[in-house]
C-alpha cells in the first residue's frame, strides 16, 4: 500500500482533511509514519490497528507524540466497535471476504450510531491476487462458515487453482478464485450493494490494487476532481513508469537470486565431487586387509 502513498493517498488526505484516520494493518509502519506526519502537522488523530506488526512499527510510533495516535495490538474486528468514527480508514489487514465485509459494516454501524456518514475507505488488494480470492493469516481465527477451503500453496495469474511454485505460498490461500464471498474486492462490492446508501467506488488496478470508496455524503467537487485526475492519460502514464520501475527492481532481485543460485549450484557440484572421491577412497580402504 505504501507505493500508493505519495501519488494517491496523500493527495486524498490533503483534500479530505480528516480529523481522525484509522489504519488497519500497519505492518512495518511505513504508511503509519506518513499518517502520523499528517496528524502531527494538522492536529489530527490516528488509530493504528495491528495485532502482529513488525518490530519497526514500534520504532516509528516512538518518534511521534502519543497525543496524536493510539495503537491497538488487536484484531480490527475487536477494535472498531471501540473507536470513534474515522473520516478516512485505510484497510490492509486480513485479506478475506469475511474480515473485510465485517470491517466495512462495523465502520458503517459506528458511523450510523454517531449520526455520521461512513468513512472514506482506502483499501489495498482490490486487484490480483486477493481481489477475488481469500487469504487467511490465521485460518483458525475464523468460523468454518467464514472461510473457503484453503492450502499453503501459491498463486499464478490466470490460474484458478493454487500451485506449489506460485506467489505467497507461505500463506493460507483459498483453493479457488472467484465465486461468492471470496476476496477483498467482492467484500467491498457486497458491502456497497447492501449498505443502503450511495457510494462512489474507484479502483487503481496495479500494485495489487487500491480501492477508494467514498460515501456520496463525503464526496466534494474537489475530491471528485482529484479522483478524476487519477485516471487522466498523464496520470496513468506515470503509473506505467512506476510499474516499470517496480518490474525492473524485481528483475534485479531475480538476477541477484540467480547469481546466488548459480554459485550455490556450482558449490554443490564441487561438494558432490569431493564426496564421490571420499566415498571411492573409503571403499578402497575397506577392501584392504586389516593387519
Amino acid at each position: 500500500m505504501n507505493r500508493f502513498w505519495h501519488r494517491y493517498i496523500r493527495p486524498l488526505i490533503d483534500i479530505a482533511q480528516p480529523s481522525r484516520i484509522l489504519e488497519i494493518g500497519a505492518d512495518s509502519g511505513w504508511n503509519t509514519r506518513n499518517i502520523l506526519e499528517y496528524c502531527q502537522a494538522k492536529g489530527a488523530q490516528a488509530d493504528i490497528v495491528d495485532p502482529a506488526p513488525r518490530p519497526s512499527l514500534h520504532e516509528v510510533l516512538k518518534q511521534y507524540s502519543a497525543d496524536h495516535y493510539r495503537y491497538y495490538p488487536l484484531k480490527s474486528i475487536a477494535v472498531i466497535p471501540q473507536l470513534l468514527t474515522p473520516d478516512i480508514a485505510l484497510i490492509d489487514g486480513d485479506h478475506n471476504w469475511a474480515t473485510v465485509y465485517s470491517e466495512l459494516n462495523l465502520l458503517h454501524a459506528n458511523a450510523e450510531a454517531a449520526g455520521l456518514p461512513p468513512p472514506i475507505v482506502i483499501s489495498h488488494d482490490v486487484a490480483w491476487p486477493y481481489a477475488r480470492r481469500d487469504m487467511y493469516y490465521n485460518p483458525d481465527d475464523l468460523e468454518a462458515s467464514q472461510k473457503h477451503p484453503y492450502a499453503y500453496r501459491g498463486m499464478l495469474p490466470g490460474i484458478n487453482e493454487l500451485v506449489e511454485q506460485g506467489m505467497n505460498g507461505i500463506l493460507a490461500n483459498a483453493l479457488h478464485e472467484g465465486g461468492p464471498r471470496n476476496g477483498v474486492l467482492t467484500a467491498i462490492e457486497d458491502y456497497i450493494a447492501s449498505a443502503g446508501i450511495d457510494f462512489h467506488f474507484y479502483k487503481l488496478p496495479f500494485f495489487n490494487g487500491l480501492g477508494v470508496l467514498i460515501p456520496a455524503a463525503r464526496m466534494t467537487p474537489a475530491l471528485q476532481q482529484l479522483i478524476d485526475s487519477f485516471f487522466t492519460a498523464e496520470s496513468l502514464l506515470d503509473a506505467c513508469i512506476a510499474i516499470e520501475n517496480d518490474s525492473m527492481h524485481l528483475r534485479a532481485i531475480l538476477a541477484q537470486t540467480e547469481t546466488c543460485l548459480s554459485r550455490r549450484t556450482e558449490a554443490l557440484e564441487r561438494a558432490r565431487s569431493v564426496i564421490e572421491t571420499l566415498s571411492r577412497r573409503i571403499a578402497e580402504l575397506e577392501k584392504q586387509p586389516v593387519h
Partner: protein
Amino acid sequence: MMKALRPSTQSGPVEGVVDELVNHTLRGWACASGNDSPHVYVEVRSGSQVWGADALAFRSDLAAAGKRGGHCAFAIALDPMPSPGSKLTVSAITADGKRHTLRGSPLIVPAPLGGATPAHDQPDVLPLPISADNLCGSLDQCGPLRIRGWAHWLDHSHQPLTLSLWEFERELLRLDANQWRSDLAELREGDGCCGFEAPLPAELGDGELHTLDLRRSDTGASVLSRPFRMRVRNLQASSTARQDGPAPLTRIPAKRKVTLSVIVNFYNMRREAERTLTSLSHSYQKGADDFDYEVLCIDNGSNPPLDPAWIERFGPQFRLVRPSRQLASPCAAINEAALQAQGDYLAIMIDGAHLLTPGVFHAARQAWEHHADAVVAVRHWFIGGDQRWLAVAGYTRQMEDRLFERIQWPNNGYELFRISAPIGESPEPWLEGLSESNCLMLPTSLYDRIGGMDEAFDQAGGGFANLDLWHRASESSLGPLVSLVGEASFHQFHGGTTTNVEDAEKDVRVRAYANAYRALRGKDFVGVPPSRLHFRGSLQSEFATGIRQRSLIPLRLGITEQIRPGQLPVHFDEGAQTYLQSVYAECGLHHGVMWMGQPAGVAPADLINLQDIVYQLRPDAIITVGTECGLVGFIDTALDAMGSGDTRILCISPASIASTPLPRVTVLQGKADDPHILATARHWTGSAETVLVLYDANSSAAFSLTSLQAYGALVSYRSYLVCLGTLFGQPWLGYSNRQPLQTIREFIRDDKSFVVDRSWNRQLISTCPSGYLRKIGDPVTAAHYDPTLDEFASAPRFPENVQ
C-alpha cells in the same frame, strides 16, 4: 499487511518491550527465554528515582504469542510522575541478578498532552489484563451491551470466584466467573469454566465516559491494575433514525369476539393460497371443531386479484381484505387487517405461501390455556428441500404439485414432513434458537402494545419486518415464548423475495435487509436463543425428527443431473464432524486399512494425502518414525509409481521389522528420542534437499516436544512434518491420557516456521487431524545469502593424488 503472530522484540536470554506510558503507568512485558523460566523483575530508573514490579501479570495476546503462558506483563505506576523530558531506563532483572535493557528503553516522559483529545478523556482499549494475588484473567469486552471476560485462580482451585463491577463506590453488577468457554479450554486456562458475561446496566449507555473498576466480590480488592474508563454508546439517542419500534396501535373494540384471527398475506400466489387456506380450514385443523377463529386474507395487490367468493369457499370464517394503500411492503396492510380483527389472539402469516400442519391451532390453544399471555411460534420448513437451488436446477411448481399428490395431501397433513426440509437444514430443527416465525400467534393486546408490524420496513416483502415483530414481541411478552414442536409451516415454491431466488441474489438481499434493520434499530438483529423458549408439542410424524430422513422423500422428480453444491459447515457442522471422527477412532476402523497385506495404521484419506504430498514434493529423503510397515510399503510403492528411484527412506522403529526388506529403505531400530538414533538420522539425512518426516505420535512413547523439535529440524523448507495418529489425542477423547495435540501446539508455538495445515483434513475422516505441519517460514532470500557457504574444502589429498 498484518502478520499472524507478533514477532519477538528482542533476541537473547530476555525478551520484552516497553509498550506505553499512559497516565503515570508504564506498561509492557518481559520474560526470560523458555516457558519454564522464572519471572523477571522490571526496574524503572529516572535519576535517583526507582520503581519496579514483577513481570507476572497475564495478557491474552502474550499467551497467544507463547510468551511464558501470557504471565509476563507489567504495569508500573510511576508515583510521583517524573517531569516531562525525563529519561526512563527500563531493565529486566533475571534471577541471576543480570540486567537486560528492554526494547523501548530509554523512554522520554512526554510533555503534557496538548493534542486534540487529551488522554484522560479517552476510554481504555480492551482487553485489559486481570491480575491479582493468585488470580489471572482478562476483561475482554465492556459494551455496548455486554461485559465479558474470564478469570481463574492461579492454583486452579475450584473455589468459586465472583467479580463485581463498580463505579466509584457503587456496585453495578456481579459476575460469576464460572462459564465454560471453548476458547479458554483451547488455551488450557483452567478447565475452561472461568468465563463471565452479563448485560451491562442500561445506565452506563449514556454516551458519557465512566470510570469503572472490577473487584473481587468477597474481599473488594481490585483485580485490574487501575480503574478503567469506558464510554458506552447511547444506542437510544445517538442516531436520529433509531427507534425502539412503532407507536402502539389504537383499536376500536370489536362488536363480536373470536379467539383467534389469522391474518395471512397474499401477493400473486393463487396456487399457493389454495393449499394455505385449506390448511387453515376447520376440516383440516384437528381438534378445532369448537375453536372460534377467523381468517383475514390480505390481497396485497395481486394481478389478477383474488376473488372474495373464492376465499369464502373455504368457510364462513374466511374473508378477503383489500388494503387501502398498495405498498411493496406488506407491513401496513397487515396492521390494517389486524385492526379489523376480532380475535383475542392474532396469527400473523406474512407469507401466504406457508401452509400448516393440522395441529397448529390445537397446540396454540393448549399453550394459551396454560398461560393466556403466551406467544406461540411455529417453525418453518421448505417443501422439496432447498428451494433456491432446486429453482436453479429446473424445479417447477408442477413438480412440487407431484410431491403433494404423492403424499395425498391433505389426507394426513403430517406427511408434509416427508417431502420437506427444515429451514437451514438444521440437524436439530426443533431445539435451536428462533429468528422468525411465519405463523406467529400472540395476544392481540401485545400486538397493539408493540405497535404491530413496523411500517418503516418498506422493502418489498417487508425485509426483516417479520423478524423484528417476533423480536419485539419476545421482548415485551408478559407470557412464555412457546416454540411448537412437531407442528410447522411449510413454504411452497413461488417467487418470494428471498426464498426462491439464487443464492448470490438472496445473499445480497438478506445483507441489505440486515443493514436496513440495523439502520432502524441501531443494532444488528439477534434471534431469540433457545434458553428463552418453552418447547411444547409432540412429534406426530417420524419424518419430523430432522434432515437425516432426506432419502425418504418419496418421489424421484428427475429434475437435473447436477448435484447440489454442499456447504460443509452448514450441512455437516463441526460437532457432526467430531462425532464422525470419534466413532471412527473408538471403533478402531483404521486397523482395517491395509496395504499389500500389511497394516497401514492410518485412515484411507491419509494414505491418499501422503501420496499427494510425496507426489508434490518429490522428496530426496523420507524419515518415518514409528510407522506401520504397510505405510512404509505404501510410500515405497507410490515412489516406484512416480519414478522416484532416488528417494531414500529411513524407517526408525522401536522394534524389529519383520517385513520384506525394501531396497530404498534403511531400518534403524531404537527409540526415536535416543540421542544416538537422532544423530544417525541427521547423518543419514545428510545433504538431502527435500526432506519429509512422518512421525507416528500414537505408537511412539517418545513423542515429545523435544523429539518433535529434533525431527522438525530435519524437515526442509515447504515440506511437512506429518504427525500420524493425532486422532487418538483429540480433546473429545477426554478420558485419554494421550496428549499429542498439546505437544503439537507447544511445538508450533515455539517454532514459528511451522503451521498446522488443516487443508489435508478435508476428507472428514483422518487419523491425523491437526497433524499435517507444513514448514513455511524462514525462507532464504537473496538478501540473506551467505556466500561463505559456497566455499568447500578441496578433496583431501590421497596418495594416488600425489604426483
